[in-house]
C-alpha cells in the first residue's frame, strides 16, 4: 500500500509546495479584491474588475499547472533551447511592436490581453542555465563555463534593459545564487559582493574622501597586524586600492549611469531626499498604509489607504500595502512565513534531486522567487529602492502569475520523477 502510494503519480508530487502555492494565490486574490473594492459596487465576480480577471488567471494557472504535471519531464529538457530562442525573439519583438506602458515597452498586446515576455524570460533563462550547466556537470567548475553561463543570463538582461525595464532585468541577477551553489563563485566573492553593496551605500551617504580615509586607517591596522606576512600585506593593499577606486567610481556611476528617477528612489531610501508629495509619494503612502495596519490590521475590506487609491499600483506592485493595512503585523508576518517556508522547501527539493539539471533549475526558481519576494516587499516598507516588480502569485496580472506558476510546476514535475530521471 505504502509502496503503491509512493510510486503513484499523485504520491510523488510535493503537495506541501502546491499547498503553499495555492495559499499564496488565494491570498493574492482576496487582497486584489480588497485593493480595488468599491463599496458602491460590491460583487465578487465581475469580470470587468481586476479581481474578476485574477480569478480567471488563477483558474487557468491551475490548468496550466496540471498540464505541466502530466507532461513527461524530459520534454521540458528537450525543448529548453527552443523555448529560450522563442522568448528571446519575443523580447526582440516587444521592442518593435510592444505597447509602451508607463515608460516601459514591455507588453505585447494579444487581443484584450497583454503578454509580458520578460516574465517568461526568467523562466527560460533558468531552464537554459540548468540545461547548459548540466552539460558541463562532469567537469570541475571553471571560468569558461562560468562565462558562457553568465552569457545565457546576460543576453536576455540586455534585451530587457532596452525596454527599459530595470526591475525585471535586475531579477535575472538573482541567479548568482545558482553559480554560487554550483561552485563557480567562492565564498570570497560572496563576501566581496556584500562588501561592494555596503561600500556603495556608504559612498552615497558619506563624503567619499572621508570614507576613503576611514578605509585607509582600517587597511593600515591590518597591515600592521600582518606585517610579518608579506602575502597578506599585499592582499590588504590590493583590497584597499580596489575599494578606493570603487568608492570614487560609485559617485561617477551614480550620476552618469543611473537615470534621474532611479537616483531619486535611492536618495529617498537613504534618507537623503524628502519629497512625500513628489518622488517619495508612492513610498510614503505605502508606508502609511502598512504602518497604519498596526498589530492586527483594519480588517478585510476595511483598509482606507488602499481602497481609496492613496497607494498607487495597489493591486500589482504595491499589493503588499493592502495586506499590511488590512491584516496588520500578524498577517504580514504570516505571509512572510509562507514565503520563507516555500523558499526553504524549494532549496530542500533542489538538494534531493538526482540530476544536476533539476538541482540547478530548482536553485534558479528559489533565487528568482526570493529576489521578487525581497525586492517587492522591501520597496513597500522602504528598505530597498522602488523597483517595479510583482510579488509572485499575489500581485495582479496574468503573465506574472502564469510564468511563476510554470516556473514552480516544472520544478515539481522534475521532483515527482526524480527517481526515474536519475537513471537517465
Amino acid at each position, binding site marked *: 500500500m505504502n509502496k503503491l502510494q509512493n510510486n503513484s503519480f499523485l504520491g510523488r508530487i510535493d503537495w506541501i509546495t502546491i499547498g503553499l502555492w495555492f495559499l499564496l494565490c488565494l491570498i493574492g486574490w482576496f487582497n486584489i479584491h480588497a485593493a480595488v473594492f468599491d*463599496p458602491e459596487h460590491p460583487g465578487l465576480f465581475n469580470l470587468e474588475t481586476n479581481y474578476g480577471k485574477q480569478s480567471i488567471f488563477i483558474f487557468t494557472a491551475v490548468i496550466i499547472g496540471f498540464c505541466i504535471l502530466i507532461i513527461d519531464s524530459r520534454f521540458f529538457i528537450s525543448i529548453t533551447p527552443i523555448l529560450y530562442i522563442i522568448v528571446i525573439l519575443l523580447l526582440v519583438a516587444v521592442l518593435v511592436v510592444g505597447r509602451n506602458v508607463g515608460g516601459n515597452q514591455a507588453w505585447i498586446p494579444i487581443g484584450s490581453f497583454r503578454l509580458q515576455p520578460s516574465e517568461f524570460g526568467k523562466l527560460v533563462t533558468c531552464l537554459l542555465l540548468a540545461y547548459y550547466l548540466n552539460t558541463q556537470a562532469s567537469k570541475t567548475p571553471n571560468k569558461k563555463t562560468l562565462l558562457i553561463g553568465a552569457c545565457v543570463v546576460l543576453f536576455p538582461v540586455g534585451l530587457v534593459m532596452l525596454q527599459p525595464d530595470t526591475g525585471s532585468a535586475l531579477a535575472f541577477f538573482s541567479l548568482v*545564487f545558482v553559480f*554560487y*551553489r*554550483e*561552485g563557480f563563485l567562492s*565564498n570570497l566573492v*560572496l563576501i566581496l559582493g556584500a562588501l561592494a553593496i555596503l561600500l556603495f551605500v556608504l559612498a552615497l551617504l558619506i563624503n567619499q574622501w572621508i570614507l576613503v580615509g576611514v578605509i585607509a586607517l582600517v587597511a593600515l591596522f591590518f597591515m600592521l597586524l600582518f606585517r610579518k606576512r608579506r602575502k597578506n600585506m599585499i592582499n590588504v593593499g590590493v583590497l584597499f586600492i580596489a575599494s578606493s577606486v570603487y568608492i570614487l567610481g560609485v559617485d561617477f556611476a551614480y550620476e552618469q549611469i543611473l537615470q534621474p528617477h532611479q537616483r531619486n528612489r535611492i536618495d529617498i531610501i537613504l534618507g537623503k531626499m524628502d519629497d512625500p508629495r513628489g518622488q517619495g509619494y508612492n513610498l510614503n*503612502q505605502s*508606508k*502609511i*498604509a*502598512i*504602518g*497604519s*495596519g*498596526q*498589530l492586527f490590521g483594519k480588517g478585510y475590506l476595511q483598509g*482606507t*489607504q488602499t*481602497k*481609496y*487609491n*492613496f497607494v498607487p499600483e495597489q493591486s500589482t506592485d504595491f499589493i503588499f500595502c493592502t495586506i*499590511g*493595512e488590512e491584516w*496588520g*503585523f500578524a498577517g*504580514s*508576518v504570516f505571509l*512572510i512565513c509562507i*514565503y*520563507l517556508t516555500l*523558499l*526553504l522547501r524549494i*532549496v530542500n527539493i*533542489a*538538494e534531493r534531486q538526482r540530476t544536476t539539471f533539476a*538541482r540547478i533549475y530548482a*536553485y534558479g526558481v*528559489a533565487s528568482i522567487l*526570493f529576489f521578487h519576494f*525581497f525586492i517587492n*516587499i*522591501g520597496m513597500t*516598507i*522602504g*528598505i530597498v529602492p522602488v523597483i517595479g516588480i510583482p510579488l509572485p502569485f499575489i500581485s495582479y496580472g496574468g503573465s506574472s502569475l502564469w510564468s511563476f506558476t510554470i516556473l514552480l510546476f516544472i520544478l515539481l514535475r522534475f521532483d515527482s520523477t526524480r527517481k526515474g530521471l536519475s537513471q537517465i
Partner: protein
Amino acid sequence: MNSFFERKFVIQGIFIAIALVIVARLFYLQIIDDSFLLSANNNVLRKVIVYPARGIILDRNGKVIVQNEPVYDLLVTPREVKDIDTALLCQLIHIDMEGFKSRIAKARAHSPYRASPFEKLISSETYARLQEHLHKFRGFYVQNRTVRSYPDSIAAQFLGYIQEVNDKDIERSNGFYKPGDYIGASGVERSYEELLRGSRGVKNLMVDALNRPKGVFMEGKYDTLAVSGDGLVSSLDIELQILAEQLMRNKLGSVVAIEPSTGEILTFVSSPSYDPNLMVGKDRGNNYMDLLNDPTKPMFIRPIQASYPPGSVFKVVAALTAQQAGVIDQNTVFFCPHGYFVNGARMACTHYDGPTSLIKSIQMSCNTYYGHVYARMLDSRGMPTPQAYDLWREGLLKFGLGHPLGIDLPGEKGGNVYPSTYFTKRFKSDKWKSTYNISQSIGQGELGITPLQMANVMAIVANRGFYYRPHLIKGIGEKKIVKEEFTEKIHAGVDAKYYEPVIEGMSRAVNMGGTAASVRIAGIEMCGKTGTVQNPHGKNHAVFFAFAPRENPKIAIAVFIENAGYGGTWAGPIASMLIEKYINDTITLPKYIQDRIYNENLLPKVEKKESAIKKNPTTIKKDSGKVQKQIAQTTDKKELLVHHSQVRRTHE
C-alpha cells in the same frame, strides 16, 4: 552527494536573514511607530460640519413668526461633467450660456475634482423642476440648507436679520464661527444668537486620494449630531402686530404695547417697516443697500432708538412724582389764566377753566398747572434749584426714563433726562430757576423719551407703581424658560395711593369729554393721555398713550407718529383700535375713521424737507449748541408755544 552541498545552508541562511530584516522593519512600522495611523487618518478623514437648524420664533399664541425654509445650492464637480444638455440646464435654473460657462470656469479654477457652488439659493419651486432632470446632469449635485422665512412679513425690526459672519465676529467668538457661517446681526436674531444658533455637528467623512467623499467613517461612531437652536416664544401677539403695522403703513413712528402684569411686549412696530423676507435670498445685498439709503430709515428701530420729547403725556409722570415729593396733593388747585406767564416764561394754555384741579389738569392737559408743579418741585423745596432739579430727575429715572430699560434687543437708547450740571454749564451759573427750562414741565424742551419708555410709563401707571422690564421673548426652548431679569418687579418710586387721581384724570380724558374723547371704546374703561410734540421743521408729532381696562389692566400702549399733527387725531384712534382688538377681538370704530387711518400718508415729502433745511441754515446753526440733538427731529427750544390737539378739538 554533491561537492558544494553545504552552501545550501548559506543560501537558506541568507533567505532567513532577509525575512527577519523584513519582519523587523514591519515591526517598526506597524507596532512601534504610531505616526502612520495618524497620517492615514489625515489622508482619509474629512470633518464635515453639519449645520443645525436655527431656532424658530413663535408668537405668544404659538403662531410662527420666523421659520426655516429649505433652499438648494446646485454644486458642480467639473471633472465629472460629461455630455450634458447644457441648454436644458440653463433653462431650468434661468441662466444663459455665458453664465453657464463662467460658472463652470470658476468651479474649475477652484478645483476640478471638488464640488463647488454652481448656483446658490435655488428656490423650492425651481428645485422641484430641476430635480426631475437632475439625473441627466452628471457632475451636478444639490445640497440643501435652510434660510429664514417670515410667513407674515412682519416685525422686521424686532426680529432683525442674520448675515454671514465677518472677520471680527470670528475673532470675537474664539473660533466658534467659521467663514460662511451666519450670525444674528440685529434684533432678536442678534440678542438671542447663542440660543438660536444651536450647536453644530461633525461628520467624519472618508475621502479618496482625489478628495471625493467615499462614505462615513466607522459607521458614524465619532460623528456628533447637530443640535437645533432653541425655539423662542415671543411675547408678541401676531394678529395685533399685523393690525398695528397696517395702521402704521405710510406713517413714521412707533407703536409699543405692553402687558403691564408681566412686561411682555404685545406689539412692537417701527414704521416704516420692511418685509423681513427682503433680507434673505439672492437679492439680499441690493435690498439691504436700498433700505440703508431709504430717507425714511426703515432700518432704524424707532421704538428703542428714537427719542422724542414726550409732550403732554409727560404730565402723568409730573403729577405722580410731584405728589410723591409732597409738593402737591390730589386736592391741589392752580388757577389757570389761559397760560403760564411767570418771570418771563410764556407757556400758552388753551382751555378756559380757571381753577384747575389735579384730575382736571390731566383730563384737560393744563400747561399752567404743570408750570406751577415744576416751579414747586424746583424752586420751593428749601434747597438750591439745581439740587431740587436732581431730585426731580431722580424721580424720572425711577420711572424708567433717561436710561435704557434693558429690553432684549440690541441698540436700545436711553433717551435724555439731563442732570442739573448740564443746565448749570449751559446757563453758566447755578442760580438758574425753573423758568429757565420750564418747557420740560410739559414734556418738551430737552427731555427725550423713547416710545418704549412711554409705553413702560403707561405700564407703571396701570400697575399703580411698578413695572417689569419690557421684553420680547417670554419663553426660551422647550421648557419656555423666562429670563430671570424679566421676572424682577421694579418699583417706580411713587406710592400706589397717588395713582388714583391721575388715573381718574386719564379716564375722564377718554370717557368724559376730555382730550381723547373721540377714541372712547364702548364697554372698556380706557385711561389715556394725548400729546402733541413741537416740531419746528414740519407738522407736530402726535402721541397717545393709554392702558385698559382701568381695573385689572390687560394692555398699556404708546403710539407715536411723526408729523401727524394732533395726538387725538391719528395716534388716539390707532391706540384705541389696538386696545379694542386685543381685549374684545373686534373693532367698533366707525369704518370711515378706520379707512382714513389706513389710507392716510403721513410720510414727509423728501424734497420739501431738504428745502426747509436750506432755507433756514442759520437757525439750525444757532440752535445746535443749545438744543440737544434728537434723532428724529429737532425741537426748537425757544418756541415754547405749545399746540394742543385738545384745544383744536374743542373748536372743531
